[in-house]
């Protein structure tokens, strides 16, 4: 939305905004905690509130055509986008494309955690969706791997729903999240945070029954004699985000193998002219305010690119 608004403000006349969900706002809609907008709006908002400010602005601009339930499934280097809407597959040819496709969570498998594969292991974002949007509590006795912001926020969220949160386990010597989240989500609720620890094993046949936790040395190897067990029925995995860039990859853009971000000369650019990337799909950000700023830049870049193209015509 921020990219669309800024492209409009930079003079682009005909903008199509595609969203596969029923609503605009993306992941913000499930982030019902506060702390959004401190730099951008100079006040503290919830995720849905922050998103709704942009929705209002987008809806007020007639040259931005919004299509929800529109799922982009194909992108070419020539900037043709194929998207599905109920009952139709539509193809559009754009002069410039801005991708704001966000990120996905790294999984338990990517962290190579040994043990069984029962029910009760959730990516933290899925647990957040189940509680905040669907209204289901995923578990009553929770251990959280990773002290990223989603993990921290979810520790408090489970606590507020009456669940027991046993601990947050972090392999690094410092938290990956914001300090204010450690204070407000863990310290205020007496939830212990173990640094330099990792989950060595998951137990449970049908449902998670417990985990083994170990302390690690500088090389992340288990320190002998440090192993202890924790009973739990739920393991939340919050071990980082990966930008979702499969569409630009399909179009032929070069991606960095490790970070899955576009390889480009300048901010927001890809190796394909006229295709830009912003927000968490460009790079994983901590704060939504910076995401909005990044997206505004992408909108301006797209406008600039179109200016160049039009001059050539």
């Amino acid at each position, binding site marked *: 939305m921020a990219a669309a608004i800024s492209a409009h403000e930079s003079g682009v006349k005909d903008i199509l905004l595609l969203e596969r969900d029923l609503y605009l706002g993306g992941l913000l809609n499930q982030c019902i905690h506060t702390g959004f907008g401190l730099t951008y709006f100079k006040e503290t908002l919830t995720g849905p509130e922050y998103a709704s400010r942009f929705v209002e602005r987008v809806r007020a601009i007639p040259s931005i055509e919004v299509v929800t339930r529109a799922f982009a499934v194909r992108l070419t280097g020539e900037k043709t986008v194929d998207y599905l809407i109920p009952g139709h597959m539509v193809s559009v040819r754009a002069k410039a494309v801005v991708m704001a496709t966000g990120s996905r969570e790294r999984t338990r*498998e990517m962290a190579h955690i040994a043990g069984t594969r029962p029910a009760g292991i959730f990516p933290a974002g899925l647990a957040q969706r189940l509680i905040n949007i669907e209204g289901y509590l995923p578990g009553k006795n929770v251990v959280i791997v990773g002290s990223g912001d989603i993990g921290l926020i979810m520790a408090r969220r489970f606590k507020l729903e009456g669940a027991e949160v046993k601990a947050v386990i972090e392999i690094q010597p410092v938290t990956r999240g914001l300090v204010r989240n450690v204070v407000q989500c863990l310290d205020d609720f007496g939830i212990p945070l173990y640094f330099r620890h990792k989950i060595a094993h998951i137990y449970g046949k049908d449902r998670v029954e417990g985990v083994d936790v170990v302390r690690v040395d500088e090389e992340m190897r288990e320190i002998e004699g440090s192993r202890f067990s924790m009973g739990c029925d739920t393991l939340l995995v919050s071990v980082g985000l990966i930008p979702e860039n499969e569409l630009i990859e399909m179009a032929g853009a070069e991606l960095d193998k490790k970070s899955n971000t576009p390889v480009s000369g300048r901010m927001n650019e890809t190796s394909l002219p006229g295709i830009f990337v912003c927000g968490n799909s460009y790079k994983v950000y901590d704060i939504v305010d910076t995401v909005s700023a990044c997206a505004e830049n992408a909108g301006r870049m797209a406008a600039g690119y179109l200016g160049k193209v039009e001059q050539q015509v």
Partner: protein
Amino acid sequence: MYDLIIIGAGVIGSAIAREISRYRLNVAVLEKSEEPAFGVSKSNSGIIHPGTQNRPGTLKGKLCVQGNRLTRMIAKELGIDFKKVGELIVALDNDELVSLSDIKREAEALGVPGLKLVGRAWLKKNEPNLTEEAVGALYAPTAGIISPYRWVYDLLENAKANGVEVHTSTRVIGIRRVEDPLSADRGPRFEKRIAHSAESKAWVERLYALCALRYADDRTRTDPGDGGPGTGNYFELATSRGMFRSRFMVNAAGLYADEVARMAGIEDFVIYPRKGEEFILDKKKHNLTRHLIFPIPTKTSKGILVIRTSDGNPMIGPTAQDVDSKEDLSTSEEGFRRVLESVKKYVPSIDENDIIAYFAGLRPASGDDFIIRHEDAFPGMVTVAGMQSPGLTAAPAVALFVRDILKKNGLDLRRKPFFRRWRREPYHLFSSSAEAARKMIKEDPAYGDIVCRCEMVSSKEIREAVRRGARTLDGIKFRTRAQAGRCHGGFCTARILKILAEETGENITSITKRGRGSEIVVRDMNDGGC
């Protein structure tokens, strides 16, 4: 009264069910899990072996070679994606090169077709990522890959289309053989016997007591189909869902075949679980190898392999380790290290960061060979046990073998006038052409309603899977690949839960990952509890 009951809906039980569904018989498959294929048949390497690594004179060898041929044929009939990719047994030094000739000779004696010894130049050209150290290999062109669980579903679905009943969540807990006093072919054990596991004793006793009451009534009738004097011997199977009666019975209970056998008083074999851990690589690495890569086999194992899977992801494994529990499906750090170290000797470019998923399976081991036989001491019962690798490959051949045993022991095999041999190929939006996809979506918008964004699975396919019998998240995953991609269900699980609940009429709180006890959420907070 059934003519035949098959215990276990793994690949063996399902292949037998499909084979027997050609005949005019009343057949039921009883499966203790919530869905078929949740046992050994869901976690294996998915290789249709050519028959190379088996000793001559073994059942394994004979049925593997035959099974390879039959699998290719039936896969075509059912429209399932079997790929004939070929395998290379690779020698890293001259000693190993010598043993390749031995393997070739033994395999040719078994009838494995098309074997060829290939040298460095061939390997360089045809398997570029193979280590420079490789001095030669035995090439077996008939090796192939299949999706093991979709194979089971398709076999079973086809059996169902031909009239076989499938009862899931139905665990057999007691077996007794009822002998007709007028029957000529009484078994050597004349006395009726009740055998069962100790923990379920009370339940079994109660079931039999209940049934006895009913039969007292039955016996006064002359319905030849329902037991009683003059109608022949039959089995009574006590299950978690009540009593089933059948004239013949096949024990295809995989890891638990020994426990089922013990219910019938057969105690001469034990199943020892042997664990195999496997690690799946990112689809982006689908070009890693062109063939299946095998080391020189040892006496007990085919070794740790580089595998191609029908979903496109390469896979490495399996380990082989005896374990105590038939439920121990955990993976380990050591297994991970061992597999990586071992495969890197053959394909050095394999990188641990490409591993995106892993699992463990348990081989139902019992001695060196399969145990497939009629139980003369318990006439009418056929045991199919010790089905380790190549059990997946052998399954259709095992089915024929079992059919012949049943026939020899009195099962009357008369062909149905019409057998549904073919099946419409399943559709998938993104394996169709753009034009076909457009048309599909226009006709049914649900095709364009994508639920799993990583594997592009539509709500149409998910609902279809439920209609075909999926009841759990794993069942949906095995059938459609939804949740099996990059995000491992992070994005689509919530939606799939809702579809499952809608289609089955259950509450989301009772939807499970793979059956009772594996519920996903613990509390519904929508009913305004506070």
